């Protein structure tokens, strides 16, 4: 028995030691991002957080968002923006959430600990939602540049907003396009039973039905499946003209191949999970005719897009996807701080909620939930291994 108590003590000591070393290393990245405070006497340091996957499969997209925020922060620092009667200095704290929900709550806590007033992030819906509770509890404003799940703003957290069309807006626009522009009357739907796929497919179904189309079959799969022969055979037994897939590229690609193998000549349509370069890489020229959408507007068509692109590319290289949105979100928050004369979330949030901001991507204003009052969705068609822009719908 004596042994046990000694071991127990060792265990406690060991775990303490473990966390001790953890801290040592952990401090480095924060120190590295910190910049010397400007020598202006009346200055105010405002910490802006960013969170997204900086490593892993989506690392390049998270880094892209971070670069958007960084560009905005550096510009704002050079512009000597005033908040109240002080010149503000902005400091960017960026954290890697690895696109994992639990890690996201961890980094959210870390950002809150370090005293940020606003966070631009997270990139994914799955991470933005659990993290939003932590920001909300600490009264911090969160603007996601790219989380599209409806549930994110449906929580009615006043500080949780986004500058991107949500799944509901996207699904509805896709349905409008399919029924009104393509004239599809009989539609089959498959969703992958994930929060994203199911949300998108359900909105698509409701909208399509309300526009007079019939959903002849609604089948289900999972985000890990690769065999869809059984459900596609079911669809083959109907007279569907279009197959809508709510899910990701990794399933959509083999699904398309199996459609060909079964002799099922339907148009395949999907959301931003399908409209990726990866999808085209996997299907090659078989992809011709597939229709996909992306929330937002192509950079070239944005009101200040080309100018932004030039600035951005000079520093960071090609824009991956959402950097302009992250940039806009950052500048807009700071504009709200400037107008409110305070970097306190409780003070600048009311200003932000009612603001009309002219950004790179669009004229941004929020509705009462924190979604875009006026959102754009762009449609693309796969032609010879490239996504060809068709049109932007939804924006005034």
């Amino acid at each position, binding site marked *: 028995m004596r042994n046990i108590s000694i071991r127990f*003590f060792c265990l406690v000591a060991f775990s303490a030691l473990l966390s001790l070393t953890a801290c040592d290393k*952990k401090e480095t990245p924060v120190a590295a991002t910190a910049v010397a405070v400007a020598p202006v006497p009346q200055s105010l340091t405002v910490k802006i957080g960013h969170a997204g996957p900086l490593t892993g499969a989506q690392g390049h997209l998270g880094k892209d968002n971070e670069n958007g925020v960084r560009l905005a922060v550096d510009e704002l620092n050079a512009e000597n923006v005033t908040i109240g009667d002080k010149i503000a200095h902005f400091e960017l704290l960026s954290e890697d959430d690895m696109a994992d929900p639990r890690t996201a709550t961890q980094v959210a806590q870390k950002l809150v600990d370090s005293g940020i007033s606003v966070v631009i992030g997270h990139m994914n819906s799955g991470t933005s939602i659990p993290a939003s509770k932590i920001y909300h509890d600490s009264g911090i404003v969160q603007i996601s540049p790219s989380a599209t799940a409806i549930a994110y703003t449906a929580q009615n957290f006043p500080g949780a907003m986004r500058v991107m069309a949500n799944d509901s807006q996207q699904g509805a626009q896709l349905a409008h396009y399919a029924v009104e522009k393509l004239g599809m009357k009989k539609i089959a739907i498959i969703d992958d039973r994930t929060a994203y796929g199911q949300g998108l497919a359900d909105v698509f179904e409701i909208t399509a039905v309300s526009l007079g189309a019939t959903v002849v079959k609604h089948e289900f799969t999972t985000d890990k499946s690769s065999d869809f022969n059984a459900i596609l055979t079911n669809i083959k037994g109907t007279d569907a003209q279009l197959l809508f897939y709510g899910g990701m590229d990794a399933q959509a690609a083999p699904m398309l191949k199996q459609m060909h193998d079964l002799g099922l000549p339907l148009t395949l349509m999907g959301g931003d999970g399908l409209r990726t370069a990866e999808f085209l890489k996997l299907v090659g020229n078989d992809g011709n005719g597939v229709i996909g959408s992306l929330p937002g507007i192509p950079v070239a068509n944005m009101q200040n897009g080309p100018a932004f692109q030039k600035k951005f590319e000079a520093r960071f290289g090609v824009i991956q996807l959402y950097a302009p949105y992250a940039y806009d979100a950052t500048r807009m928050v700071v504009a709200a701080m400037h107008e409110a004369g305070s970097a306190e979330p409780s003070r600048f949030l009311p200003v932000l909620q009612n603001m009309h901001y002219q950004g790179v991507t669009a004229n941004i204003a929020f509705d009462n939930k924190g979604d875009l009052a006026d959102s754009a969705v762009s449609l693309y068609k796969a032609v010879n291994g490239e996504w060809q822009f068709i049109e932007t719908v939804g924006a005034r």
Partner: protein
Amino acid sequence: MSALKNIPSRVLFGYATAIVAAAILPLLTGAAFGNSWVRVLDFTLLYAMLALGLNIVVGYAGLLDLGYIAFYAIGAYVYAWLASPHFGLHLSPFIILPTGALVAGLFGVILGAPTLRLRGDYLAIVTLGFGEIVRLFLNNLDRPVNITNGPQGINLIDPLISITPFSFYGLRVTSVYCYYYLFLVLCAAVVFCCIRLQDSRIGRAWMAIREDEMAAKACGINTRNIKLLAFAMGASFGGVSGGLFAGFQGFVSPESFVLLESVMVLCMVVLGGMGNIAGVLLGAALLTITPEYLRAIATPVQMKVFGRALVDPENLRMLLFGIALIATMLFRPQGLWPSRQQLPATKK
């Protein structure tokens, strides 16, 4: 109190030290590294409770359960249903947590009853199937009647504890600290239950079944009831931890209850030392804290050594984790801190 007198003072001193250490640990951690690490400690305690529950089934009764996370899921969803706007119910945790334990225990019996005749790997695959069935039902019962809200999960669950953050000698005290102490007390209660069970008639019957079911039956043990009791007890501990998880996170969705989680909890039990409470606690602590630690240092260390992140930290972390599992088992097949009662098993 007479029981206390029988324990040597040195052991009592050991326990006292452990309790004091556990009590000040979050304060030290929070002061030194920030509240995000206190959160890690919270999760450690949550997983410790879960692992202790599984230990009853796998460690004591020797029944290989690969679907244990299902009970955790059931506990979490019971909490979510009874304390969220989903059904508009907002009951007190004092009602919900026992209900969750009861419901999970019931499911334990439902799972246990048909599997009584199964042994070893057949049991493993049936429990695995059960775990997947529960998860798939949670994921799909949003139509025709919306019960679980499907893949979207249930959000805005009432928190177990909610306090206004305040400062305590420069330390910003938030609810993560309260959760720590709550979980600590509950974890201690679970440990106490386990210790008492282990030395009771029931505990000895479980171990008898584990060592040789036939012999146990021949000795007059009602193996059916005793096995069902193991499933029910293990499941209800899982149910309680699930409820705590739901109240802590405020959000449950089926993707938190995948097979890999069951496997992780099993790893905690086996790696730490099956059947030994201290070992299981050690396993839970190691498998919760180490991955977080690796995550925190993977990129900075690579940056220092190579000047850039060569290997994706997530891959590196999982790779090291896999190697650690193999190495530990090769060098300590009984676990890091094995139970003494276990015979030098030559079973194959």
